């Protein structure tokens, strides 16, 4: 630890570089980060594993980055030591909020573009985000070894679209502001059960030392910084951090609310005059109900959500109760993937059994949320993509050819049409080549009806859906049929009805199970039979009892499945 501290101090502040990597999903960002870690000797080769910075199991399994990560690297050039702080960012469209947080903590960014593919909509959005933050951008053409790589074409594309010189030189300065009062921006935090809230921050002005009394400017709470350190990429304690550096601190902070992401850290004794501009709040795009299968787990679910929120500032939730589902939470997510990730983390990390209801969007009476959606696609897929836009009640706005072969297509469409499988459809219809970006444009008037579902005569709010009046009958029919497939038969006949108000518009019924009996107990060997019955009992436990009917998780997603099947 001592040597680490000494060598760290040898780096002049002017040689500190905080940077992030902007890249489209799969364009090789995590791989590039791995290589940087390895070449700078930050991580020994033998400790190296793929996607080193993606330390959530879920991230490795899915091959994506979900949480931003920071790593400090040392590098010697011309006998000068440099400190490179890499802030790794997620690439998926759902996580652009995380990207904006990490960009705010950087002075520079590497723009990684897959030389075999070209600039994608998501990349473009992040580049603009970076330019807005005055970041120095160094274009990196990646994957030039691939047989399909066209570095010249892609370089030209970058110059054409972003208007950036592709032979850009590095120029970076960290302002020497060590004498001014401390201001450090919190860009992430998580809860450690032993040490309390751990805060990740970037020192903008002044210095912070171990043992100093600090103040969080928004909450006004004061704590003693018991431990400060750098991320290398694992936490390494240091005694002091200077302006321009990125680090972490722990101060036995018990509540996340005391040290919110976006807040500014200053000294309790010598407070800064004004806080740094914080991050904007993330706006959830998709809302779902989250209910514990076992009602006793409601409190555990609340605690788990609170802890996750610490680590995932974009997650929003508020308590909700429903007669059919019991007590749970209405949660807001950035997108469908974000929703799945949160559900999986709750189930894996907190051991909860959950039912998640189909995503819906926020409606004001008679008004539906609308959005503009921009899709980038190679020209041969323009047809299928416009079909998709039309199918989803989209209003065509404009189309531009960005390059000779790539087009940008813009639609305005109801958010409700996008929250389902729109992104999946876009990918499948363009063989994976198209990408998209969306933003909310506000509420629009629409002719909508609420479609209610009754199972065995009990209305199930979690299955209610708001549809355009013209689609109500076909959705009602398809939904009741889908539910009939998804809900296992019970010991009695179960009617499944779709209604608008009191009027039943579609009806199906599950016939009763006629027979489920194991007849012989050969030679008293009951163990196999018991195993089968236990398995059957486990299956029941995974379901939510609606009245007397056991309903599996899949059924609550029936609306989504419907869209997938009707459009493929």
């Amino acid at each position, binding site marked *: 630890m001592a040597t680490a501290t000494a060598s760290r101090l040898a780096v002049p502040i002017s040689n500190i570089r905080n940077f992030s990597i902007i890249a489209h999903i799969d364009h090789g960002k995590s791989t590039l980060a791995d290589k940087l870690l390895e070449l700078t000797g930050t991580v020994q080769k033998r400790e190296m594993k793929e996607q080193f910075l993606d330390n959530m199991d879920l991230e490795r399994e899915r091959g994506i980055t979900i949480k931003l990560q920071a790593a400090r690297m040392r590098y010697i050039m011309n006998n000068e030591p440099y400190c490179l702080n890499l802030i790794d960012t997620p690439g998926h469209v759902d996580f652009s909020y995380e990207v904006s947080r990490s960009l705010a903590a950087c002075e520079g960014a590497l723009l990684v573009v897959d030389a075999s593919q070209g600039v994608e909509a998501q990349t473009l959005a992040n580049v603009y985000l970076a330019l807005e933050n005055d970041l120095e951008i160094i274009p990196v053409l990646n994957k030039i070894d691939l047989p399909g790589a066209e570095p010249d074409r892609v370089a030209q594309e970058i110059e054409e679209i972003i208007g950036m010189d592709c032979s850009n030189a590095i120029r970076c300065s960290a302002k020497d502001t060590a004498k001014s009062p401390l201001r450090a921006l919190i860009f992430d935090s998580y809860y450690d059960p032993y040490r309390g809230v751990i805060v990740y921050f970037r020192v903008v002005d002044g210095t912070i030392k171990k043992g100093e009394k600090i103040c969080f400017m928004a909450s006004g709470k004061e704590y003693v910084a018991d431990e400060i350190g750098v991320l290398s990429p694992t936490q390494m304690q240091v005694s002091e951090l200077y302006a321009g550096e990125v680090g972490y601190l722990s101060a036995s902070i018990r509540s996340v609310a005391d040290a919110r992401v976006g807040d500014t850290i200053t000294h309790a004794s010598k407070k800064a005059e004004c806080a740094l501009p914080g991050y904007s709040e993330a706006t959830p795009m998709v809302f779902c109900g989250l209910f514990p299968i076992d009602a006793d787990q409601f409190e555990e679910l609340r605690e788990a959500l609170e802890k996750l929120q610490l680590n995932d500032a974009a997650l929003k939730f508020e308590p909700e109760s429903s007669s059919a589902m019991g007590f749970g939470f209405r949660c807001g997510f950035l997108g469908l993937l974000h929703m799945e990730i949160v559900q999986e983390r709750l189930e894996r990390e907190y051991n909860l059994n959950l039912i998640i209801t189909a995503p819906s969007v926020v409606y004001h009476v008679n008004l539906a949320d609308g959005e503009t959606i921009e899709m980038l696609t190679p020209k041969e897929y323009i047809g299928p993509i416009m079909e998709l836009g039309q199918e989803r009640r989209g209003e065509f706005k404009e189309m531009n050819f960005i390059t000779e072969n790539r087009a940008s297509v813009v639609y305005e469409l109801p958010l409700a049409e996008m929250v389902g499988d729109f992104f999946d459809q876009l990918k499948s219809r363009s063989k994976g080549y198209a990408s998209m970006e969306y933003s909310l444009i506000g509420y629009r008037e629409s002719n909508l009806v609420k479609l209610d579902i009754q199972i065995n005569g009990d209305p199930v709010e979690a299955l209610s859906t708001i549809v355009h009046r013209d689609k109500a009958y076909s959705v009602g029919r398809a939904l009741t049929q889908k539910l009939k497939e998804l809900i296992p038969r019970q*010991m009695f006949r179960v009617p499944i009805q779709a209604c608008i108000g009191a009027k039943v518009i579609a009806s199906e019924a599950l016939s009763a199970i006629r027979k*489920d*009996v194991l007849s012989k107990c050969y030679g*008293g060997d009951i*163990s196999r039979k018991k195993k*089968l019955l236990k398995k059957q009992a486990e299956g*029941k436990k995974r379901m939510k009892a609606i009245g007397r009917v056991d309903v599996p998780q899949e059924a609550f997603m029936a609306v989504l499945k419907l869209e997938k099947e009707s459009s493929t």
Partner: protein
Amino acid sequence: MLRSAFPLVSHLPIRPRPPPVRPYAASAANPPPPPPPPPPASAYVHLPFCRKRCHYCDFPIVALGTSSPHGDGDDPRITDYIRLLLREVAATPPVSDDGFPLETVFFGGGTPSLVPPSLVAAVLDALRARFGLSASPEISIEMDPGTFDAAKLRELVGLGVNRVSLGVQAFQDDLLRSCGRAHGLREVHEAVGMVSSCEGLQNWSMDLISSLPNQTEEMWEESLRCTVEANPTHMSVYDLQIEQGTKFGQLYTPGVYPLPSETDSANFYKIASKRLCEAGYNHYEISSYCKTGYECKHNVTYWQNRSFYAFGLGSASYINGVRFSRPRRMKEYADWVQRLENGAWSHVSGNAGMKDMAMDVVMLSLRTAWGLDLRSFNKSFGRSLTESLCNTFRPFVETGLVIAMDMERRALHPSDLELDLQHEGGIGSRVAFIRLSDPDGFLLSNELISLAFSIISP
């Protein structure tokens, strides 16, 4: 900690030792004893030899081929196996040293009737020497048509065998052939003739299988009619189970042609219940029927969750609260017997968890017409579990799948269960037993029992 442990101890089912000779005839009507059960008074003996494997069978058997239809005293596969079996009996220590002779012995298979009576005698002698046999034990043996003659049957009866279970399965040649049985209808009639006219043999049972491929309702009615005419004291009616790894498993899917549909199959079950009850049989367990007083005492041991010894390939014993299944392969079974003899393996008394014990009690008792004894269950597993179980079954009591019964096992009105549940600690005041109804509740037993499991182990 200690203080709170004492009430628990008093709940432990430490029972006074039962009298040496247990009154079995009455026991069928008695509540199942709380676990762990008293020392075994029953022994299952597995005789795995068959002429060939039936298409539905996934049991540990040894197929001998058709060379020796009536068994062969010299077949080394049989003699070697019996030698192994005798070694296992000799190496198995009696659970109790004094006064627990065997009340029931069951030779199951396989096709035990392929084993020469002299070898059956050797096994009985070994059991008698090791554990003792009561004054009037029930000794059952499974026999298949075409594997014995009148002389062999007389010989077995002479040894003390007093109950025969005849594996008929169907009264149609086509069906017998299609399920790979080694006998035809002619052998069935011969066997029924021999068994029903055998002197000294009053108690015999017949097995039938429903839901066979291509079986029609007419065929099923015909099989039931023939059975009633043959007038056995006991009937076992099994619904065909399609097991993985069997020929049927490869060929067929349950509910899909040529197997009967789920509705037809359920109907077969209901027809059997109706016809056999009309003919004076009691439907005392999901797949068992008998004339009054002719329950299979050995099988009742299983349903009442009492312990039993088991010997032979793949057989399952239940001793000192531990269920143990022997290896299903001959080589591994032989090695295991060797270890047993060396003292490297013992029937240690184990502590099955309370949840598992409660599941066993529920699963076994709900298979029977006597049902689950709520007071005894309450005593062993506590009031809250008993109440949640009753609460879970309440809607099914209303729809008639589950029946609430009083102390004398008379059916009660569903409202009686409601009343018991409304008063704290009221369970057991009106409703003493709950059972599954015949045939509707029995037909859905898996659903209802697994529902109870999900309450016992949430």
